[in-house]
């Protein structure tokens, strides 16, 4: 199994499994070449963006051990464990704990502890697993590593190797002045001397860790387990709204979680059409969702969390205190969606098509604002039957719609008609063999106007006799 990425000349191998590595495949070769040799190779596209996101999340998760963690490149996490190791019983036990927990998450990790960031990343990537290196043996530990461990660019690596400097130990023995003169033009992040100084602790290399993501969370702890969450909603929502008001934010997605006494938890989520921090509105939405939430033997902790927040500044709409119409509609959408489900509350979505039932689709209201209406040149019925219904032809005429037909067990006499309007199948969407349709607007004796069509024509080679259907009703 290998992962591929797009190279200059087609896909190349980006990462590979242990089995693939055992067979002698290496990164950077073209996928087609490898596939020619290994016929059973399984290739998947790599997802660099997904990897980066996962690693970011892993970095935040790693704050269980120490407060400052940051993603390191595309394949590592740096943690500053200064002052944190003793909490886990020393560095060795902390490393064991890390190894075990990464394994529980299904990730394999190579870990190393060193006094500096640069040394730690070099030891983790090139020094085998589980290295713990103290400040005294730092120079000794990094000396046997190859110069590529510094993560300098390929040109510099080649240059150093040409000079015979293959390990960091060799590089360290070269007089500083010579290195400085040789690499004075090289950018800081690729300069071997700067990187070596950082790794050996001669220059400062602080860790710039991103801040913890703020969680908008309100919780209520109860002295006794209770069964009904509704009475506590007001306090929770008020607390959450107060927090969000301070930051001028409004919630778009909320989650209420109850933590039951038997250790289980249950949660309910609601989405909002527009950001809101009105406690009463949030309570109303949540209260409608709590039917059927299983409290078990009771719960003693409730949390209400805003999963997605958006900026929402304070503003006054009207001096006379009248309600804002747009906000009213957004609140209505929230209530309808929360109770009926997002697929039942829809705007029309439009599609360029000649087939009538394809023109109009549905779009959940929470997904966005309604689109502008498509103009259809020909007259269309106000109501469309879905699915279309077949009619029985009682008296067919050679041209035009049947003079007499039966639909829903009532027979109708055609008084006047207009048509045909021909709609051909859309070959790029329809299955082969789909028949064309000839539409007629038909007025029956008492004035009702139907939209009927004939599917296919006689002798088109796509089935037997053409059939007739009713698809719409005109005003």
């Amino acid at each position, binding site marked *: 199994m290998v992962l591929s990425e797009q190279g200059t000349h087609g896909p190349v191998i980006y990462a590979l499994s242990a089995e693939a590595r055992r067979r002698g495949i290496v990164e950077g070769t073209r996928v087609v070449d490898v596939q020619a040799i290994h016929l059973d190779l399984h290739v998947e596209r790599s997802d660099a963006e997904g990897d980066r996101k996962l690693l970011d999340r892993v970095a935040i998760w790693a704050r269980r051990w120490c407060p400052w963690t940051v993603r390191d490149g595309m394949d590592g996490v740096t943690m500053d464990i200064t002052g944190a190791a003793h909490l886990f019983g020393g560095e060795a036990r902390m490393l064991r704990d890390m190894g075990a927990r990464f394994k529980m998450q299904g990730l394999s990790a190579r870990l190393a502890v060193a006094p500096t960031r640069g040394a730690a990343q070099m030891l983790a990537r090139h020094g085998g697993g589980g290295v713990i290196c103290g400040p005294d043996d730092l120079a000794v530990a990094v000396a046997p590593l190859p110069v590529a461990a510094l993560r300098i660019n390929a040109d510099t690596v080649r240059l150093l190797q040409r000079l015979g400097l293959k390990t960091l130990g060799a590089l360290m023995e070269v007089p500083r002045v010579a290195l400085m003169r040789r690499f004075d033009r090289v950018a800081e992040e690729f300069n071997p001397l700067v990187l070596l100084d950082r790794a050996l602790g001669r220059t400062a290399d602080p860790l710039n860790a991103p801040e913890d993501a703020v969680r908008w969370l309100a919780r209520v702890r109860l002295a006794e387990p209770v069964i009904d969450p509704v009475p506590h909603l007001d306090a929770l929502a008020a607390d959450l709204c107060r927090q969000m008001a301070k930051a001028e934010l409004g919630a778009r997605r909320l989650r209420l979680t109850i933590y039951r006494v038997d250790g289980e938890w249950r949660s309910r989520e609601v989405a909002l059409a527009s950001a809101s921090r009105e406690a009463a509105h949030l309570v109303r939405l949540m209260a409608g969702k709590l039917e059927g939430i299983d409290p078990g033997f009771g719960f003693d902790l409730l949390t209400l969390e805003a999963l997605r927040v958006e900026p929402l500044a304070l503003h006054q709409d009207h001096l006379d205190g009248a309600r804002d119409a747009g906000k009213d509609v957004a609140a209505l959408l929230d209530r309808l969606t929360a109770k*009926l489900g997002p697929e039942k509350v*829809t705007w029309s979505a439009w599609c360029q098509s000649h087939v009538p039932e394809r023109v*109009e689709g*549905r779009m959940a*209201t929470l997904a966005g604002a309604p689109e502008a209406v498509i103009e259809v040149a020909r007259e269309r019925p106000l109501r469309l039957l879905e699915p279309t219904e077949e009619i029985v032809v009682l008296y067919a005429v050679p041209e035009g719609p049947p003079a007499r037909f039966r639909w829903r067990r009532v027979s109708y006499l055609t008084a006047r008609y207009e048509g045909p309007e021909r709609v051909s199948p859309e070959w790029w969407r329809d299955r082969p063999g789909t028949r064309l349709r000839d539409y007629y607007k038909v007025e029956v004796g008492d004035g009702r106007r139907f939209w009927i069509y004939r599917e296919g024509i006689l002798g088109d080679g796509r089935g037997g006799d053409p059939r007739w259907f009713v698809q719409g009703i005109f005003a």
Partner: protein
Amino acid sequence: MPTDSPNAQVISLSSKRLVTDVPAPNGGDAVLRDVLSGGPFDGAVTGFVLSCLPDSEAPVLWVSCRMSRRENGRLYGPALRQFGFKGHVLRVEVSHPRDVFWAMEEGAACAGLSAVVGEIHGAPEVLSFTATKRLALRSEASEVPVWLIRSGDHGALSAARERWRVSSLPSEVHPWNRAAPGHPLWEADLFRARGRAPGVWDARHEPAARWAKDRLRLLSRSGDGPVAQDHSPATELARG
């Protein structure tokens, strides 16, 4: 004034037009109105309600139950623009009439909507006098017009301020093609109303009218057949 001749008496016909316009229901009035379908599968009701809706940027909430969609089809968006309706329709498609009422009540309480339209097929139990009364009160409190389309129903008790029964009439003569149906005509029967006299009229949709309140034209029916220009039932012509 002509004088009587010795042979015959000259009488003058009244100058009053035999066919008169009646004010159409003002769609902007925030009351509950019932519209009953005169016959099954009749699109006239939808057309009648659409031509009464006010002109507004605000969306219209259109709630329908499953039975109504199965019987009469669902509202077809591309036709709305052709019909002269310019707003957006917020569709709520539920299965049970109970949810239709719930959604309509929520909508009727929301001043940001231009109108609320609900469709119910048959006469389910939830369609009681109390339910319609609640709807009427909500509509009047929040000033949102509410229309209730009832198909397959003979008109059970309702608290609606106006109750209409609308059915299709044979359409007008097509301007170019005598064999084709022309502009639609409906029969609008106001059989119960508060604040105006009931009656039966011929209704016609005027998509080109400038103001929303002129889009629906109600013409009194004269017993004398087609006299006026704008009252030419196609029946006669189609028959002849």
